[in-house]
């Protein structure tokens, strides 16, 4: 190419080629920008990240280079548009939470949503746009482009360029529309991802609960069968030993042996009854009760026990509404936890009993927390503590917490454990504040006997 080429006067044809080349260059730049943004949008599932990326892409010099942009999203429930992100010259700024109705008061934004098509308009002639561009740039032309995914409007992008009205050119509206499409897809992806993520979490949780319930059910059934197989021979052994005592004369040495047999059988029968209490579906009797009252009664029952064991009791019982529960069973549960706390502190210690109203995803609960200073539970065995027959105590049946767990589950509540190894453990019994009583059965032991009604 000759260096003197530019000195020559350009022909008309050359000028056209130059203009086309310039336009082409700018289109290539825009397309490459769009490509880059699209790539970025497809890799993120965070809604906020998507919005900010789009704002930066529209207003940044590296991006499409418009002055200002605002993105509003649809609020499906309230059927309004809500401003979510805004930005200027590549920097996002905090949104002003403008809410735009979808009727005629919503101006060009509402119109773009309803007609699902981009609109170019002078901000001065639209009350909503004047409100959005608060700096009195009434003269600026704006492009209002709907964000559409799967034929559904998810929001709008509002773009202006108060300096050169670039936003209003047909080409630029087309580019913004392409960006809006990508944004729509990305937002829809993010929505689906969130949905999937939540469903997955729920599934994992449900599977855990089911496995737990199945495990406890299997053990309950086993306990029941075992108890039956053992009880019949025990009745014969114990019953006949009693008879033998009557038959044996006077102080014959055999009498003492028989008495031991009778006593031991009595002990075994007692253990069996506890076992069956566990396996048995509790016959519930619900009434509206004050949990604080039940707590106080349990503490009163344990008062002597605590005093003798040098255990101090601190109460922090808040005012809580009465709940539907089986008082006897809840008392049994709290008593079990208190007894465990007592046994965890043979050298004395402190128990703190508190009650309160709490709320989580599942609803409102009244909670009673019993915290001890008994050194906590070793992490290695923590997951076993609600299993039937699991015990760390000599002569313990391992059924106390298992039964408590079942009782609270039947009430639709839960027991939570906060364990600090070396310090102590806190058991929280959470019972739902249902307006009605519920017989929420986690499982029912299978019937071994065919039930038949007799007319």
């Amino acid at each position, binding site marked *: 190419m000759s260096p003197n080429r530019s000195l020559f006067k350009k022909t008309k044809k050359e000028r056209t080629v130059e203009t086309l080349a310039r336009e082409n260059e700018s289109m290539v730049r825009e397309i490459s920008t769009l490509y880059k943004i699209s790539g970025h949008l497809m890799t993120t599932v965070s809604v906020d990240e998507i919005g900010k990326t789009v704002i930066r892409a529209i207003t940044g010099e590296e991006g499409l280079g418009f002055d200002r942009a605002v993105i509003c999203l649809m609020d499906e429930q309230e059927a309004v548009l809500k401003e979510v992100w805004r930005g200027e010259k590549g920097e996002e700024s905090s949104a002003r939470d403008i809410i735009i109705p979808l009727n005629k008061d919503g101006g060009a934004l509402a119109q773009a949503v309803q007609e699902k098509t981009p609109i170019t308009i002078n901000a001065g002639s639209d009350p909503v746009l004047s409100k959005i561009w608060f700096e009195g740039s009434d003269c600026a032309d704006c492009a209002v482009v709907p964000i559409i995914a799967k034929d559904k409007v998810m929001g709008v992008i509002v773009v202006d360029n108060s300096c050169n009205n670039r936003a209003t050119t047909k080409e630029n509206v087309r580019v913004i529309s392409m960006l809006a499409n990508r944004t729509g897809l990305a937002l829809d992806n993010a929505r689906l991802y969130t949905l999937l993520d939540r469903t997955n979490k729920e599934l994992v949780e449900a599977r855990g609960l089911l496995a737990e319930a199945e495990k406890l059910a299997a053990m309950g059934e086993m306990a029941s069968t075992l108890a039956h197989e053992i009880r019949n021979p025990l009745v*014969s052994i114990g*019953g006949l030993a009693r008879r033998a005592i009557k038959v044996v004369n006077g102080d014959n040495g055999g009498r003492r042996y028989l008495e031991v047999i009778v006593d031991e059988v009595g002990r075994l029968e007692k253990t069996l009854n506890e076992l069956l209490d566990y396996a048995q579906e509790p016959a519930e009797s619900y009434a509206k009760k004050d949990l604080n009252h039940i707590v106080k009664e349990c503490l009163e029952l344990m008062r002597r026990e605590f005093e003798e064991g040098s255990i101090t009791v601190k109460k922090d019982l808040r005012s809580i509404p009465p709940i539907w529960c089986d008082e006897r069973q809840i008392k049994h549960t709290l008593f079990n936890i208190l007894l465990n706390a007592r046994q965890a502190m043979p050298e004395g210690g402190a128990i703190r009993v508190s009650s309160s109203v709490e709320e989580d995803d599942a609803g409102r609960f009244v909670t009673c927390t019993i915290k001890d200073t008994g050194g906590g539970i070793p992490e290695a065995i923590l997951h076993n503590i609600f299993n039937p027959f699991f015990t760390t105590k000599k002569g313990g049946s391992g059924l106390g917490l298992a039964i408590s767990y079942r009782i609270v589950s039947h009430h639709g509540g839960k027991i939570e454990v906060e364990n600090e190894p070396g310090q102590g453990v806190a058991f929280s019994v959470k019972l739902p504040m249902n307006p009605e009583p519920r017989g929420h059965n986690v499982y029912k032991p299978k019937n071994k006997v065919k039930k038949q009604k007799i007319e």
Partner: protein
Amino acid sequence: MEENKRILVVDDEESIHLLYREELEEEGYQVFSAMNGEEALEIFGSNPIDLVILDINMPGMDGIEVLRQLKAQKPSLPVILSTAYSEYKHDLGSWASDDYIVKSSSLDELKTSIRKRLG
């Protein structure tokens, strides 16, 4: 002491029969033993039985079916369910038995229940 009252014990365990027979005879009752449901109905059909002690879980005809047939023949007949299971105690109402006693090596509860029903 009740004289001449006849009690039918239905259970599939020999040793339970041995125990119940001795204990109840000592109380002055006349004791009949049946090892299963069919035998129980047979004995009931040919003897004037005043009260039945009935196990639930037996091979063949189970106790609930025996109870149904006994009550169909003689609605006023006192029947005490005596079983190793405690789970079904609260179903007593739907089974229309007169009492439900969980087997125990001490027969005190059973004896009290019998006395109450035979007066």
